[in-house]
């Protein structure tokens, strides 16, 4: 027995020595980072290995360090260590001693971070970001605290709980991944983020909210009485991804009443710092103006929040949010007129985000269905490929699912596309291909004998980008190399013959159309029109609906509509772009079934 004890002591001593050595090493490392380590306890603790850079979850760490006293966790971006400022030295000492050697599971799982604690005699100034909350609200957001009293709140919660229990199997209730939802008035469709205006729920809004709604109307902010209500029930740990409520389907002002638990709502906008807004129970929020159209709002999936600049941790309980919306009955006059996203982009940054949201991500979503409708190659494109000398090296830019990669076996055909999903389909078909953006092709200058670019450049949102795309094709081919470009035409008839796209109209005339937003350019900025499929184009820059059959959905034959951005070309426009580029000679220009086409030669 004594032998065992002895063995244990020697082991622990060896371990202790090893740990001390390790600790000295880490201390030296921290000092090398410029931290001033103090041998005596101070109120500032630095914990080695506890930083975000070491894949430690800052939320969990905040929770842990605040157990030892009031403290602020300084945010040190990307660092492997964390710095915690305690209110006093006692708490800091308690924390440092308790956390020495503490192991925390990293966000990468399967791995532990081992903590080593030291004291600092000053707070590192650089890289310190205090950003848990901001006192200001996003522009246009109106916050009215204590909009109802506690009795009214409890009465509403009782009614909602009753509804959840009786409606749980009804069509108006659904458990989403991260929260429970009830819909009244109209059912919210999550695929398209809108409602079916032709299919209201007969019961309308519940009676128990009428009183509340009267009071919201009395604030004077709402142009009309809401007719759609979504109740979200968030349990601790639930959240909602950042979003902007659909502006085509819902009117200009949204109102939300929060019941039960507090929460923190995060507002984000491109180019602006994030704003975290504390949502106390019984508060009314009115989303107007900028907060409605330009900011996205969401709630992180957390079980607690850090309030008062890191001094207070509050555990979440069940929270109910009541969101009132007014459904737009006439989509042509919808609130979208105020939305930036629906304007024709005038600069590169807007063009970039429009292409990202209304071209790239759409193709990634519709890839399977798109591919199944694009099997047949267009005859004149095949003709062009066959006209090239045997064993040509050809690049298909924007090859989609590889429609032309297999039609001419005598050549070496290489495909590329911006959509990873479409290139995956090429791979399944055994076609060599890679992923890239056509504005910058990763190919050796002059390495190809020919390029084809079929139905691609109409997706670039500015003229500058369309020219850039053509320049890249020219760079890819050798001198004397040929290029074939097809782009959708605004003119869908040629010599009084309708294109196939229009002809199908006869068969699908009874199909339900998306309301077109035919805007007049008179009122300032040009807007993107939402095109009605199989009809004539009303303007050059449009959003064209794609109705996707959900191939993989087993549950229902649901149909989602996605909008793709197009710039349809006018007669001579394509040649005029090409004529602006040196080393480019237009060999031929023609109209083919609703497309403008050019054959170019690099000179």
């Amino acid at each position: 027995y004594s032998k065992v004890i002895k063995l244990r002591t020697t082991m622990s001593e060896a371990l202790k020595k090893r740990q001390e050595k390790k600790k000295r090493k880490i201390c030296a490392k921290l000092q090398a980072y410029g931290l001033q380590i103090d041998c005596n306890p101070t109120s500032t603790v630095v914990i080695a290995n506890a930083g975000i850079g070491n894949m430690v979850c800052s939320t969990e760490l905040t929770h842990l360090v605040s157990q030892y006293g009031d403290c602020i966790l300084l945010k040190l971006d990307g660092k492997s260590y964390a710095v915690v400022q305690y209110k006093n030295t006692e708490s800091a000492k308690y924390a440092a001693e308790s956390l020495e050697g503490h192991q925390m599971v990293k966000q990468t799982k399967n791995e532990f971070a081992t903590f080593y604690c030291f004291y600092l005699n000053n707070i590192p100034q650089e890289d310190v970001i205090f950003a848990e909350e901001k006192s200001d609200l996003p522009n246009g957001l109106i916050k009215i605290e204590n909009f109802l009293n506690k009795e009214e709140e409890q009465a509403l919660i009782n009614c909602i709980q009753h509804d959840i229990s009786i409606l749980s199997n009804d069509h108006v209730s659904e458990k989403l991944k991260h929260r429970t939802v009830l819909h009244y008035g109209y059912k919210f469709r999550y695929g398209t983020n809108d409602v079916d205006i032709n299919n209201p729920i007969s019961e309308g809004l519940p009676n128990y909210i009428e009183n509340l709604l009267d009071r919201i109307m009395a604030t004077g902010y709402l142009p009309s009485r809401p007719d759609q209500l979504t109740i979200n029930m968030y349990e601790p740990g639930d959240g909602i991804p950042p979003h902007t409520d659909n502006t085509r389907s819902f009117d200009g002002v949204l109102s939300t009443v929060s019941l039960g638990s507090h929460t923190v709502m995060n507002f984000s906008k491109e180019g602006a710092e994030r704003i975290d807004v504390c949502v106390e129970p019984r508060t009314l929020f009115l989303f107007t103006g900028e907060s409605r159209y330009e900011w996205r709002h969401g709630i992180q999936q957390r079980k607690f929040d850090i309030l008062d600049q890191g001094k207070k941790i509050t555990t979440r309980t069940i929270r109910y949010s009541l969101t009132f919306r007014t459904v737009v009955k006439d989509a042509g006059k919808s609130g979208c007129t105020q939305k930036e996203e629906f304007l024709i982009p005038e600069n590169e940054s807007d063009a970039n985000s429009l292409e990202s949201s209304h071209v790239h991500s759409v193709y990634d979503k519709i890839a399977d269905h798109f591919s199944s409708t694009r099997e047949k190659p267009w005859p004149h494109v095949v003709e062009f490929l066959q006209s090239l000398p045997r064993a040509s090296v050809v690049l298909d830019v924007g090859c989609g699912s590889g429609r032309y990669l297999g039609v001419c076996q005598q050549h070496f055909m290489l495909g590329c596309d911006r959509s990873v999903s479409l290139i995956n389909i090429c791979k399944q078909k055994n076609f060599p291909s890679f992923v890239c953006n056509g504005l910058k092709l990763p190919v050796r200058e002059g390495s190809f004998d020919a390029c084809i670019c079929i139905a691609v450049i109409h997706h670039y949102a500015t003229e500058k980008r369309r020219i850039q795309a053509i320049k890249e094709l020219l760079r890819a081919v050798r001198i004397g190399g040929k290029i074939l470009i097809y782009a959708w035409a605004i003119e869908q008839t040629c010599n009084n013959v309708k294109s196939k796209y229009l002809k199908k109209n006869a068969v699908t005339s009874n199909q339900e159309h998306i309301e077109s937003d035919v805007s007049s350019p008179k009122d300032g900025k040009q807007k993107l029109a939402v095109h009605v499929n199989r009809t004539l184009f009303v303007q050059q820059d449009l959003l064209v609906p794609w109705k996707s059959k959900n191939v993989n959905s087993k549950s229902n034959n649901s149909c989602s509509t996605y909008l793709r951005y197009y710039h349809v070309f006018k007669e001579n426009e394509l040649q005029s772009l090409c004529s602006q580029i040196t080393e480019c000679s237009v060999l031929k220009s023609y109209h083919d079934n609703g497309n403008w086409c050019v054959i170019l030669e690099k000179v």
Partner: protein
Amino acid sequence: MRLSAFVRMRLITHNMLTSHVKGVKNGYPLVIKAEDIKEQETDFNPDFISRMITRIEWPALTKAMEMIGHTDQLPEEVPKDYETNNDFLKQAHHALMEIEVITGSLTCPESGREFPIANGIPNMLLNEDEV
């Protein structure tokens, strides 16, 4: 024609690709790091290969072969009689069309930017600040 079940990045594709990161002057050839390589026999067409020889960068191909560990399989230079040299064309066919990288990466020789190859598909997308 024999088809493999999956297409992978062949060395002929590598021969066409270059780094396009902003500011890079000489991004060619890309450095291959191959974790998974497969060799797959395909039909040999001497006319096709001899045409390809005129379109590719030969030194980049010999370099690519070295990078994936296939040394001394290709001559330093294209022989003058390449059009009729069947042995040479067969070697070139093997290098260009039959060796495929399934998993790995392509690295820009100048900036060190790495482009992943997954399932045989090189992903050459750039971040906004690299364009």
